[in-house]
């Protein structure tokens, strides 16, 4: 009868339905039979894919949120305003998925609120937990105008808008803290994390790479959104983001290389071990190649060039986080680890949920500017000098 409520069956919807069913099954096993039944983790490898990918990568890839809001609201670079809503949305979704991933990973998920009550300020993890909780709240507030606009609630909208600047500053500080602290987490394992990755400046490495990857993620998301939702790609704007990626990536590259020299770890690079290969892969794919591509403005200013180099940065970033949390820890643990299909399944499920929620938000909320001609003109106004001519007679 009510035909429009039954979704049309398409290939991607079938895939999504399958992933959803698998996710339900994996969740059942995980929450009712325990970690042993669902993962390949053991006493020697207590952290696996869920910490390495769902948490470390999830948090890092959402770093576009605080960078873009800072640049737009604080440094007043209005040019980048059109991408703020989608960036904030994806950061907000990202953090919620990280929390969901944590629910899978921690042994007693119903106690996830414990860090709020039992404090241990000597613990990096405690600091990360508090920061992530607070930053998720900040993101929720930054995201809320989209909902208020849709519901036409004027008063809350005004209130939230009036505290934008404090929110952006809080967001920046909280993000810098926990992004770098995810690196600090590994400072406590000097004898165990492989020498290629263990360095006293791990926190600095983590924050720098997170900014580069977060900004690349903004480009990747914009590109995919354009394909999926027929939204226009603000190429000149994204090329600007690409230039920022280039700068941050260059800083990261210098840090990495200099750090290897400082610690006399450079010869480890070519000893042919599994670790050295993974390190070279991470640096080659995620840093050197995109650096080369982004440095050439003819490549940076084309859609495909920008997209491919951003995908490379993101991939390299993911490899880096997995290297630090898994590859670098394996040899000292003395056992082998490869994620079970259920660990991979839960991760795929969460990522798919992210896509679905993003799609739903784009459909029902004003995430992308409407593409009427007038609006286009409006958004292009930044090209015209702001200062109105005052000296015309």
């Amino acid at each position: 009868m009510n035909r429009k409520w039954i979704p049309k069956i398409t290939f991607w919807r079938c895939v999504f339905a399958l992933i959803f069913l698998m996710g339900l099954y994996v969740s059942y096993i995980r929450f009712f039979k325990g970690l042993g039944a669902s993962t390949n983790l053991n006493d020697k490898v207590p952290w696996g894919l869920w910490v390495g990918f769902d948490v470390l990568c999830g948090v890092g890839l959402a770093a576009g949120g605080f960078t873009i809001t800072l640049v737009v609201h604080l440094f007043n670079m209005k040019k980048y305003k059109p991408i703020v809503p989608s960036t904030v949305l994806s950061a907000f979704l990202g953090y919620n998925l990280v929390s969901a991933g944590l629910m899978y990973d921690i042994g007693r998920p119903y106690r996830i609120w414990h860090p709020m009550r039992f404090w241990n300020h000597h613990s990096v993890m405690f600091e990360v937990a508090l920061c992530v909780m607070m930053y998720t709240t900040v993101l929720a507030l930054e995201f809320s105008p989209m909902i208020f606009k849709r519901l036409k609630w004027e008063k809350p909208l005004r209130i939230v808008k009036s505290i934008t600047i404090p929110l952006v500053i809080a967001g920046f500080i909280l993000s810098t803290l926990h992004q770098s602290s995810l690196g600090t987490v590994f400072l406590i394992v000097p004898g165990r994390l492989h020498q290629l990755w263990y360095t006293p400046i791990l926190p600095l490495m983590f924050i720098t790479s997170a900014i580069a990857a977060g900004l690349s993620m903004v480009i990747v998301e914009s590109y995919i959104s354009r394909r999926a939702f027929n939204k226009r790609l603000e190429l000149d704007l994204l090329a600007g983001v690409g230039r920022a990626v280039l700068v941050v990536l260059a800083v990261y590259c210098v840090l990495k290389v200099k750090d290897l020299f400082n610690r006399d770890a450079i010869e480890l690079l070519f000893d042919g071990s599994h670790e050295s290969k993974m390190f070279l892969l991470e640096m080659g794919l995620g840093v050197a190649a995109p650096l080369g591509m982004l440095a050439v403005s003819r490549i940076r200013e084309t859609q495909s060039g920008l997209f491919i180099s951003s995908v490379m940065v993101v991939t390299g970033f993911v490899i880096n986080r997995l290297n630090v949390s898994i590859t670098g820890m394996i040899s000292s643990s003395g056992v082998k680890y490869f994620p079970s299909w259920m660990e991979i399944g839960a991760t795929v499920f969460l990522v798919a949920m992210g896509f679905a929620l993003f799609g739903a938000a784009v459909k029902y909320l004003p995430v992308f500017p409407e593409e009427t001609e007038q609006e286009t003109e409006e958004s292009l106004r930044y090209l015209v000098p702001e200062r109105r001519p005052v000296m015309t007679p």
Partner: protein
Amino acid sequence: MSKGMLIDTTLCVGCCMCEEACNEKNDLPKCDESDLSACKFTKVFERGDYYVRKMCMHCEEPACASVCPVGALKKLKEGPVIYYEKKCIGCRYCMQACPFQIPTYEWASAFPRVRKCWFCYDRVMAGSQPACAEACPTGATKFGDRKELVVEARKRIAENPDQYHSHIFGEHEVGGTSMLYLAAVPFGRIGFKSNLIEKPLPLLTWNVLSKIPDFVLVGGTLLGGVAWIINRRIILQDERIEEAERKRNAGEPTTRSGFFGRFGKK
């Protein structure tokens, strides 16, 4: 007084009485794991010609207790590092951070606990010795004040320099541990970690963590200041434009148009 145990691997005959006493004391289920596990808090390993007992080292400044976000692990001044099951959220950072890879987990359970030797905390607090030390028939495990045990260990090395490798494992490793080991050969050869630093591990993260309040204060003020300056400049600029517009509409000459205006009108 901080208590400790001196484990002299040259005296251990591998009878496993300590293991049995431990299992009994802690009501551990029977299992045949090859290493420490949720059902085995201590285990005797055969390493070459020697037997080496492995258990929680009860570090003086334990990494596990410092990393736990909810403070579920705690070092008591009496020596033991104990575990509050009711606080634990199961993040397993303690297992990752432990330089000796000691804490184990109840992987099969839907409500898992972290499991490790707790230095028979109840017995130590009551003034008696842990079950394993009491059960040891050869005196390979000796319970006592840590300081006195260090003196004792030094004496044993000094009296029989040929019999002992001149190093007390646990005296300085990762800032010192409540468990002290003696051996006839270098420790690396009988399965001990040889790449441990002498600094307490929690210092490594505390160096970074302790700077956070400064970072928040300085960063917040700096960003707030930058925001204020930029905002102020925009307001001033708008005001200037408005002013100029108002003057022009009112027919008043603005500075520059006034200057050029005079020439123009002439």
